[in-house]
């Protein structure tokens, strides 16, 4: 399978009160289309989680496509909580790889800052089971905190060992011009930061922000007609789901859906985790990154945090993890994140990512997750 990345576009992530959904989507989308030489996509896939609950806006496929000047073509919203972006990319890839269309614009967009935190917290918790988790006031952070405590107690991992990840994210993100949070922190800062849901602290958690990212995907046929043949392709795509409710899953320290999605994507690309130069993985919370590194086969069970603390996955290592600064520092406009990841890895493989650069990167992987392990979309990108 070869689906080419003809263009990418991103907005800065932040509290962008003056920009609505369409402003953000248009900015990212047209950057991607311009990069691709102005070729208009035959279909539009919109990744978003909370337009219904926060903007009272459904019908988002039409709203965004027609709203940014792309009426008259198939368009629809794909929602998978914080994995909406990745699921949208997977959908776009499927449309092109199946031959149904020759080009698709995937745009992920999210506006989280229109309401106070308590309201957004409730909306985010809709990623969990409504009747048995949200009903009980289990916040999304709270559910992840259950996994963090379980993981730390089971594997004997200390607070400071876990903190190596957010410290790394901030260091990487500090020079990413698109990042929401651009200041370095220390392990002491993490340990002292406000407790959100014990043991998760503020500096374990991705910020609330607005943003949009877009990728223009084209088929082999369409790629030939572009002014410049794209140098990056999506060589493999994989998705999997698991139960939304955490109590009906096999374990509290594993994310089998991630393992399954990654195996599918890597198998399609004919690669193994060892081959990867760069990964952008889903670190909404420190504990996510730690478990996902293990699910990707990049670290033995229970060891990922320690490895990061020892310097693995830092710039210079293979793979380098989250050179963008990840969800923690680049930010996490939830429905858009999965598309940011693909845009960032594409730029790494092209050699023009404006932040921490992974020199000579040829093979990359993105992992986007919805819920606390319930939806995972993985894409493998290669230099072609």
């Amino acid at each position, binding site marked *: 399978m070869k689906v080419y990345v003809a263009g990418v576009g991103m907005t800065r992530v932040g509290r962008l009160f003056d920009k609505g959904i369409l402003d953000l989507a248009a900015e990212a989308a047209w950057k991607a289309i311009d990069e691709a030489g102005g070729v208009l996509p035959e279909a539009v896939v919109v990744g978003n989680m909370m337009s219904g609950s926060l903007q009272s806006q459904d019908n988002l496929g039409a709203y965004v496509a027609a709203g940014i000047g792309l009426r008259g073509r198939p368009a629809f919203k794909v929602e998978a909580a914080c994995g909406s972006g990745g699921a949208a990319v997977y959908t776009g890839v499927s449309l092109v790889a199946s031959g149904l269309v020759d080009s698709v614009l995937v745009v992920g967009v999210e506006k989280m800052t229109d309401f106070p935190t308590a309201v957004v*917290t409730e909306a985010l918790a809709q990623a969990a089971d409504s009747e048995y988790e949200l009903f009980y006031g289990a916040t999304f952070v709270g559910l992840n905190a259950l996994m963090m405590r379980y993981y730390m107690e089971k594997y004997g991992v200390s607070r400071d060992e876990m903190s190596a990840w957010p410290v790394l994210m901030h260091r990487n993100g500090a020079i990413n011009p698109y990042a929401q949070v651009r200041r370095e922190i220390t392990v002491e800062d993490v340990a002292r930061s406000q407790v959100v849901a014990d043991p*998760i602290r503020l500096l374990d958690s991705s910020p609330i922000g607005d943003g949009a990212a877009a990728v223009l995907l084209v088929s082999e046929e369409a790629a030939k007609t572009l002014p410049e043949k794209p140098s990056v392709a999506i060589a493999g795509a994989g998705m999997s789901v698991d139960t939304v409710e955490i109590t009906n899953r096999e374990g509290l320290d594993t994310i089998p859906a991630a393992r399954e999605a990654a195996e599918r994507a890597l198998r399609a690309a004919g690669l193994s985790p060892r081959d990867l130069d760069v990964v952008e993985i889903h670190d909404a919370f420190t504990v996510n990154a730690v478990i996902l590194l293990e699910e990707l086969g990049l670290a033995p069970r229970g060891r990922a945090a320690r490895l990061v603390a020892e310097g693995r996955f830092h710039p210079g290592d293979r793979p380098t993890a989250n050179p963008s600064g990840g969800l923690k520092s680049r930010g996490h406009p939830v429905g858009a994140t999965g598309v940011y990841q693909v845009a960032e890895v594409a730029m790494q493989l092209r050699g023009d990512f404006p932040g921490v650069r992974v020199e000579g990167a040829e093979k990359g992987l993105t992992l986007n997750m919805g819920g606390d392990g319930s939806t995972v979309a993985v894409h493998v990108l290669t230099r072609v």
Partner: protein
Amino acid sequence: MRLSPAMLWRTRVPRYRLVGRVCKSCGRRHYPPRPVCPYCGSRDLEDAPLPRRGIVETYTVIHTVMEGFRDRAPYVIGVVRLEDGTRVLAPIVDVEPDKVKTGMEVEATLRRIRVDGPTGLIGYGAAFRPAAGAAEAGQRAAEKS
């Protein structure tokens, strides 16, 4: 969260009485109840009242609470592993947050979980509090008098 009369009514037995489902194919129980066994995929299920005691397998103390929970912050949510191995997500109550420990024995109790404003419905559900052995409690009191 708006509380719909139908939703509260549909889920009342699992919430009030901690009734899950047991799979007649693989024998495992699950909660909350699902139409298909989440472990083996069989549709051969029946309702299963679950044990009301268990241990706290893991927990969190939520400081940034959601709307409607300010009056009980900091709020403790735990995964309780019941005596039969089934896991349940529930508030941990009647104990100081800093005294909650992984492994502590807890028992189920009915509590008022959600109230839909001053005019809406009240949602009751299962919470867990530190367990007291009935015989032990009676015994202790008998020793005192």
